[in-house]
């Protein structure tokens, strides 16, 4: 079972659309069984339409710029609240979905852990930070798919004024690039078409937006094994990371 996690699209307020390559990757009908929209994905007609085509089974949690209720369209006038948290079940996993903006302190692992405990879930999906993350804590799996559009982030930007960081080093997350066992569609490695970047004092969109690259996550869940694929869009290329999480069936008693 494939679960797609998208977060922080901020269309149209801060971004125009997903990268076309993402769209192409995701435009495979009947492959993805469920979509989770975490934070700020509900204001765009186009995006919701696209998501519905990926899979009609959509779970949504509310981000700070989402309204309390699902947006209405011509056809659908039913008012439905968007919750702050929700839980979905896939395989042997219960997956908690949580909007990042009600977690204090923001993105704090211990706070998230407490929430995961409260929701009694094995996997916690959260968003709001625009930074893609995945880690295991206390036997639970925490995944933040980042912003699927690389939208402007009002949080502290990754670059601070004191640090002169070579941008490339920080953004290239190609740690697990060797197992590109792509879940949806195998991405063919291409030679990087070096863009026509100006060589002067150059401030990229990346810097301005808060150094977030577009990213999303795909969870391939088979019984008690969750394989997480992280898709990152860097300089016109999609890179894929893979992380495997296995549920411990019995908890160790002292």
């Amino acid at each position, binding site marked *: 079972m494939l679960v797609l996690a998208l977060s922080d699209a901020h269309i*149209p*307020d*801060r971004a*125009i*659309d997903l990268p076309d*390559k993402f769209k192409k990757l995701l435009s495979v009908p009947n492959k993805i*069984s*469920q979509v989770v929209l975490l934070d700020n994905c509900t*204001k765009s*007609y*186009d995006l919701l339409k696209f998501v519905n085509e990926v899979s009609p089974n959509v*779970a949504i949690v*509310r981000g*700070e*710029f989402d*309204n*309390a*209720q699902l*947006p*209405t*369209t*011509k056809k659908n006038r039913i*008012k439905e*609240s968007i*919750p*702050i*948290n929700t*839980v*979905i*079940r*896939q395989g042997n996993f*219960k997956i908690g979905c*949580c909007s990042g*903006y*009600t*977690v*204090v*302190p923001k993105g704090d692992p*211990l706070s998230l852990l*407490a*929430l995961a*405990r*409260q*929701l*009694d879930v094995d996997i916690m999906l959260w968003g709001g930070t625009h930074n893609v993350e995945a880690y295991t804590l*206390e036997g639970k799996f925490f995944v933040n798919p980042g912003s699927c559009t690389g939208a*402007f982030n*009002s*949080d*502290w*930007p990754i670059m*601070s004024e*004191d640090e002169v960081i070579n941008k490339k080093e920080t953004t290239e997350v190609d740690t697990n690039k060797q197992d590109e066992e792509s879940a949806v569609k195998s991405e063919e490695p291409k030679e990087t078409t070096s863009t026509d970047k100006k060589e002067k*004092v150059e*401030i990229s969109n990346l810097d*301005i*937006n808060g150094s977030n690259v577009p990213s999303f996550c795909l969870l391939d869940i088979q019984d008690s094994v969750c394989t997480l694929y992280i898709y990152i869009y860097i300089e*016109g*290329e999609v890179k894929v990371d893979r992380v495997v999480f296995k549920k411990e069936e019995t908890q160790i008693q*002292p």
Partner: protein
Amino acid sequence: MSYAETLEQALLTVKQQAMQMQRCLQQRKLMDALKHTSIMLTELRNPELSPKQYYELYIMIFDSLSVLSTYLAENHPKHHHLADLYELVQYAGNVVPRLYLMITVGTSYLKCPDSPRDEILKDMIEMCRGVQNPIRGLFLRYYLSQRTKQLLPEDATEFNANFIITNFIEMNKLWVRLQHQGPLREREQRTKERKELQILIGSQLVRLSQIVDDNLSMYKDQILPVVLEQAIQCRDIVSQEYLLDAICQVFPDEFHLATLDILLDATTHLNPDVSINKIVLTLIDRLNGYKDRQEQEQGQEQEENTTSKEVKAADINLFQIFWNYLSTLNEERPDLSLQQFIPLIESVLNLSLRWYPENLQNLNALYKITTQKCQDFGSDIPPNCEYLFQNLLTLQNSESSTLRPSSNFFYKLISQCESFGGLLALQSLPLQKSALNSILDVLLHNEVDFDDENEASSNEGFLIDSKENLCSLLSIFEPLTKLGPPMPSLDRKGSKNVKGTGDHFPADEDDNDDEGSWILDPIQEKLAKLNHVVFQSVVKSSDPIKDIEFEMEVLLTLRNWCYKGGKNIKYTYPAIITNFWKVIRRCHLLATRCDSENTKRHTELIKQNFKYVSRSTNDLFNMCGNSFSDALYKLNIQSASLADQLSLGEIAYDFFSQAFTLFEESLSDSRTQFQALVYMAQSLQKTRSLREENYYDSLIVRCTLHGSKLLKKQDQCRAVYLCSHLWWTTEIALIGEEEGVTTDFYREGKRVLECLQRSLRVADSTMDNIQSSELMIEILNRCLYYFIHGDEHDTHVSVRYINGLIELIKTNLKSLKMEETTTAKTQLAEQRLSELHIDDAQNTAKVSNRFVIGSDGSYIDVPTVNGGRALVSTKLNSMYINEMIQIPIQHFNRTCDYILNQRDVDDRFKVIVI
């Protein structure tokens, strides 16, 4: 001699007679063979057959006559002389069989070298006049044409051309005459029959094109004028449409290029009901195709590195020719309807796009003439030709990919062709809307995506080069800014017919003011995106250091433009604010990175931009009122965060204050209030620049205070325990902070404890036992957070306090148990209660984990099936009271498990008693 009554009989007769004829030929009984042939041919006199049936018969007879023809030619002059036979067959009493025989014998004679070719040919075509019946005449002449195909003298092109033209003219006359046969009510039937026969006429033009080969002067001087004259003179719609189309199709592109004016001039003399546009479209398709092919050839030639052929077309200004034509047409044919005229213009437009892609003046002229035409017609453009304008304005029909206009093209078109806007403005609102919508789609694809390898080079995005151009671009879209969201009550058709009503602003205002709801509006969404596209294009085109002011100017222009949308600014302003933010960050980065003397200027610019942001939020508030205040609240907080990140504490404080004001004045719904406060807490917790002047203190106290005043006890409780974090700053690794290294974290454990105690009091006083217990467990978890985070004397959260809390929870859970209804399940749960933490996980999972409580206190009904979605509700459902009771119990169990687990890594946990 008479003919059979039905087609079947006729075919049978033909078959029999043909066989007998062949038999006679084998026995060299020519006279008998001719007699059978004559009987066979009598069937072709039948007036009752439809064209299709006649054709069937004709085909069969044609084959038999071929046999005869071969025999005749082979046995001449040994067994007979064809000159004699040519006379002999003319004794046949009926004209149709006689002429078929004559042609058969005559053409056989032509095969013999000693025959007087010209005389025979002339005689045959002359005698064919005897058949004036359209169908029979057409087939007879077609027969003549087929038989003579290979036999025309090779060296006499002119003679041959005349021969074919003569035949063509007669055939066309007959064809036209067919229309007028029979009763009036069968006219349509006639037209249908004629179309079935058109290929017979077309074949003559094909023959002509074969004859003329590449002899342009002959085509131009002798063939085309005659054919066109014939077409014009017949004044028949079907014929004119077909002939002109056939001319365009049959003859080579080069000819058309050379005779374009003649051809176009001819179309002005046609029957007024002929759709000229189809003809012109065909012609232009040919010319565009020619261009394609030529470019291909040139490409190949370049590859092969051979000398390129001279390009004749380069000398001719095609557009000028068509333009003259359009002007003439416009003058001479004022009766021409829009349905006719617009497609013409569109065709010429496509021509111009294909041949002169860079020439926008052509397009401007075309739009101008269209505008005039529209004005001539008055304001009422018939609805059935609206799509024509749509096509014209959006250039939708440019079929080949090379023609498909890019965003850059549209940008240039809009900014440089003033007539485009004029024409657009003449259209009805729905039409403008849909046309603009299509154009928007193109413009929004401005960003060159590296995906499209092939198109990346050709499809350059547009670059905003001047404010004037920007303004003209924006003014084009003004009609859209004012449109309200699509109303569900009016479907598209309805709104089209009822102009102006309900399309501007939605009828039911309540809906819009409803706080929680949001109506998706694809158009406003696109406009918002357009803001981004424009801004990006400006950034791309301008010098990043110098032109910050220009960028700001553009943004202000955009803002003013959006402002015209009235309430719609709630869709578009956030995008503008985002871009102001971007400018701010850019200024900041420039200031820090370049380290130039401009720092001060940049700081000024930053402050200016924050003012714009503030102004924008004010506009939003004034325009949209309460319906948008929640988003505004958050926009203010984010602006504050941004200011804080740039160490602009004062500005940050102002924005936070604005947010509080909004909270106090405009946020009414309790859930919204709770979430808003949590967000405030989250944002404040990340600030770093507010320490001076007690900004931070006053803000966090205010925040906590609001939390403690929330309407619902559970919201108070949660808000307050979350506010405890405001006194316990945690690291932000991004700016180099590190737990244990950084020493100046703002941390006041005493306050933290106070918050926790206060929330516990609220939890305790909560009347709902389930919520009360759950809240206490949540507070316990919060205590554990601080317990991990620091020493007791820092955090003031002591083991004693935790143990006390655990005891309290246990007591509460016991009393909660009382509420359980006694069933078998309950007994099981009771049993478990006594053991509390010593549960068997499987059982628990199965029986009781149906519900959990979310971080805002909502009940989440955990789905039991794969892929299911939880039902989230704020109300407790008494139906499932037993399951609900399990929520705090299980949560407590999990917390206890956690504590037990932590004992392995942290000895301090061992003192927590559970």
